C-alpha cells in the first residue's frame, strides 16, 4: 500500500526572464514501512522532490497523493503558484519590462489543507535540526501535539490520548532517542546529534506514517550519523510504529541502508530501485 505517490510531477523555478524546470515529470510510489531514499548529485532536484512530498513546496503540475488524499485534486496549480496578491518585480510572468503581480503565498484554503496534512501525515527531520529555541527537549517534542486544529485532515491518533497518555508517549519517545536525562534542556544546550534526536522524536510524536529527512547527517560527525541512522532504522523496524522514512541524500551509506532508492538526475527518475537495505551505517 503506497503512503506516498507522485504522478508526472513537474516543478518550474523562475530564473530572471527564464523558467528552469527543476523536476521533469517524476512518478514513483513509496510503500508503507519502507526505508526509502531519493538520491542524486547536488542540483539533481532531490531536495525539491522531498519538499514537494513534504507539502512545503508546490508542484507546478502533476499529482501527489499522501495516504489516501490526492493533495492537489481540484486545485489549479498554475493559479496557486502565480496568482496575485502583491506587486513584485520578479516572477515568471514578468513580461515586456512591466511589473506583474505574483502570488507570494498560496491560497488560504489550500494552505489550511496542506498544513493539516503536514501535521497528521508527515514528520520532518531537517539537516539544520530546526528546533524551537525557547523550548526545552520535552516541549519541542510536545509542540506538534499543541497544534491541533479543527481541520479533519489535521487529526492525529495521539490527539485522542488523555493528558497522562500524551505525557507517557512523549517520555517514551524521548527515552527511545536516548535523551531522558536531557529533557529539561533547551536546544542550545544540546550537541548536534542530540538536537537531531529531538527532531526525530518530534517527527514521530503525532504518529505520522511518513517521516521525511533532508540530508539528516549533513551537519553531524560520523559517529553521530551512525547513531542517528541506527535509531531511525530501529524505529522503522519497530512493529508498533511501522514508520516510513524517506530521505533526500547523496550519502551512499544512507542509500545502502535503504530498501527503496529513487535515483534522480537532472530532475528525472533514472532508476526506481527496490533492494534489501543493510541495518548498519558504515563509518
Amino acid at each position, binding site marked *: 500500500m503506497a503512503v506516498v505517490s507522485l504522478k508526472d510531477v513537474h516543478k518550474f523555478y523562475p530564473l530572471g526572464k527564464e523558467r528552469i524546470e527543476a523536476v521533469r515529470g517524476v512518478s514513483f510510489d513509496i510503500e508503507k514501512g519502507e526505508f526509502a531514499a531519493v538520491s542524486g548529485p547536488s542540483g539533481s532536484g532531490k531536495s525539491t522532490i522531498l519538499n514537494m512530498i*513534504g507539502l512545503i513546496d508546490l508542484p507546478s503540475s502533476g499529482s501527489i497523493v499522501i495516504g489516501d488524499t490526492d493533495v492537489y485534486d481540484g486545485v489549479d496549480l498554475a493559479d496557486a503558484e502565480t496568482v496575485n496578491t502583491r506587486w513584485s518585480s520578479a516572477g515568471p510572468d514578468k513580461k515586456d519590462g512591466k511589473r506583474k503581480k505574483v502570488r*507570494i503565498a498560496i491560497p488560504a484554503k489550500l494552505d489550511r489543507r496542506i*498544513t493539516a496534512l503536514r501535521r497528521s501525515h508527515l514528520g520532518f527531520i*531537517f539537516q539544520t535540526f530546526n528546533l524551537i529555541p525557547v*523550548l526545552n527537549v520535552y516541549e519541542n517534542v510536545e509542540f506538534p501535539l*499543541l*497544534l491541533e486544529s479543527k481541520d479533519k485532515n489535521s487529526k492525529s491518533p495521539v490527539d485522542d490520548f488523555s493528558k497522562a497518555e500524551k505525557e507517557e508517549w512523549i517520555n517514551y519517545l524521548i527515552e527511545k532517542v536516548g535523551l531522558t536525562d536531557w529533557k529539561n534542556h533547551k536546544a542550545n544546550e544540546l550537541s548536534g546529534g542530540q538536537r537531531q534526536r529531538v527532531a526525530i522524536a518530534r*517527527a514521530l510524536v*503525532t504518529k505520522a506514517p511518513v517521516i521525511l529527512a533532508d540530508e539528516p547527517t549533513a551537519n553531524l560527525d560520523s559517529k553521530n550519523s551512525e547513531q542517528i541512522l541506527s535509531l531511525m532504522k530501529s524505529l522503522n523496524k519497530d512493529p508498533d510504529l511501522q514508520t516510513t522514512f524517506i530521505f533526500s541524500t547523496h550519502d551512499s551509506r544512507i542509500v545502502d541502508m535503504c530498501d527503496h532508492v529513487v535515483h534522480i538526475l537532472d530532475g528525472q527518475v533514472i532508476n526506481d530501485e527496490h533492494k534489501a537495505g543493510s541495518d548498519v551505517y558504515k563509518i
Partner: protein
Amino acid sequence: MKHIIKLALRNLKEHKSKTLIIALFILFGVAIVVMGNSFLESVNRGLEKDFRANVTGDLAISVIPEKGTTIDVFGVNSTNITGEVPQIPALTDLERIEEIIAETDGIKQKSKLISAQVILSKDAEIDFAVLQDDDKDIGIMDLPISMLFAGEDGSFWKLFPDLKMIEGRYPEVGSNEIIVDTRVVEGFVKTWDKTLEVGDDVLMASMGGVIREAKVVGIFKPANEYSAMFQSVYCEPGLARSFAELTYANSFSQDLPDTVDLSISELSEDDFFGDDDLFGDIADDDSILGSTADFDSILGDTTLRNQLNQTDDGAWQFVLAKLNNPHADKKIVAELNKRFKEEGLNAQAMDWKKAAYSYSGTVEGIGFIFNLLIIILAIVVFIIIMNTMVVSVIERTSEIGTMRAIGAEKKFVKKLFYSEAVILTSLSALAGIVFAFICMIIFNSFNIAITNSIAKMILGGGLLHFSPTPKIIITTILVALIGSIISNRYPVKSALRITPIKALSKE
C-alpha cells in the same frame, strides 16, 4: 491558548533587548499620558468645584448669543475682530423662564446674576499709563481689574455660601456699596501704590466709559485660595446694571413699543450731514446764536431718551441654578433647552463648563494640544515598535517556517505574535501606570504651588496636582493595546508570508 501564552512569554524573555526597548517606550509613553491627563483632570475638577460652588452654579441660563459669539458669565466672546467689547444682553421673557425653572424637576435653588468688568481707583482720573510701567512689573492678575458680580437680593448669597468675609459686611440693598476680593486689595496697592480698606470710597470704571463712585464695605477671600478665577467685586444689582449697560434702551431694543419713532434710524449719514448749507449760515444768523432758549431745545424733547438711558431695574443677564443632583446637569440643561425652543424663547441653558467657557475652554484647549502631541508621539513610538517587530520577524523566519512546516496554521503564528504584543504592552503599560502613580504621589505630597499669574489662569489654579481616574487609566491601556496591535499588523503580515520552504532555505 495556554501554550501560546507560554511560548509568547518565552520569546519575550529570549529576545531581551528588543523586549526592553519596546517596554521602555510603552512604559514612559503610558506614564506621560497618565500623568498629563491626571493633571488636566485635576485642573478640570478644580475648576468645576470652584465654578459650581462660587460662580456659575450647576447651570446657567442666558439669552441665545448672536452668530459668531458665545456668552459665559465673564462676558461675550466674539470671533469678529471689530474692537468692540459687546455686553451681555439681558434675558427677555424672564418671567416665563422662571416659570419653566419652577416646573422643572431636580432644581434645588436659583438666583439671578449680572456681570461686568471694572477697574478700581481712588483718583478722579484713572491713569492707565501706570499699567504700562515696566518698573512696576504688574501682571494681568495683579491689576485691580475685576469681575463685577451682582446677584438677586438674598438668594444669591444662599446660592454661593462659601464666600469667606474676612472684614466688613455685605452691601446693603439699593446702595452703591461693594465688597472686594483680597486679591483686588493686593492689586490695588501694587498698581496705584495706595491701600484699599473697608470704608474707602473708590471710583469704578468700565471699558465702555461708565464711571461710578462706590464704597468698600467688606473684604472677602475666594472660597478656593488657589482659584484660577479672576479677582472679583460684588455689589448691588443697581450699580452693576450701569456697568453692564442694562438700560431700558437696551432692554427695549429687542421689543420696542410702537410709540417710538424709528424713522430716523432709516436715514443715512448724508441725509444728516450731506447738505453743505446745513451749518453754512449759522455763524451769521443772529437769530440762532442769540437765542439760548432755541439752543437748549435743538434736540427737541429728550425725556424719552433720558428714560431709556436709565438702568432697567428688572434686567438680569443670567439665571443660575443649583441642582439636587449636580451630575444630572446635562440632562436638565437639555430638558430646559427643549422647553425654551418649544416656546420660542430667546434663552439657552448651559452647564457650568459652558457657563465658564473662558476658563474651561482654555483648559480644554490645553488638553487638546497635549493629547494631539501625545498622538504624534504615539505614532512615532508605534512606528519604532513596528520596525523592531519587523526585524524580530526577519530574525525568527526559521522558527516561524519550522512551526508552519510541522503543522502550525497561519492563525497560530498570528495568535503567537499578537499574544507577544498584548502581553508586552499590558505589562509595560502596568509598569508605566505604577511609575506614573509613584511620580504623582511624590508631586502631590509636595503641594507645589504655581506662582506665575498667567500660568495660574491657564492651568486653572495655583496648585500642581494630579488626579488620576479609572477612566484615564483604562483609556490609556486600551489606546496602548490598540496601538500595539496596529503596529504589529505589518510585522504579523510579514510573518504570515513566511513559507516553510523560505524558512528552510534561510538556514
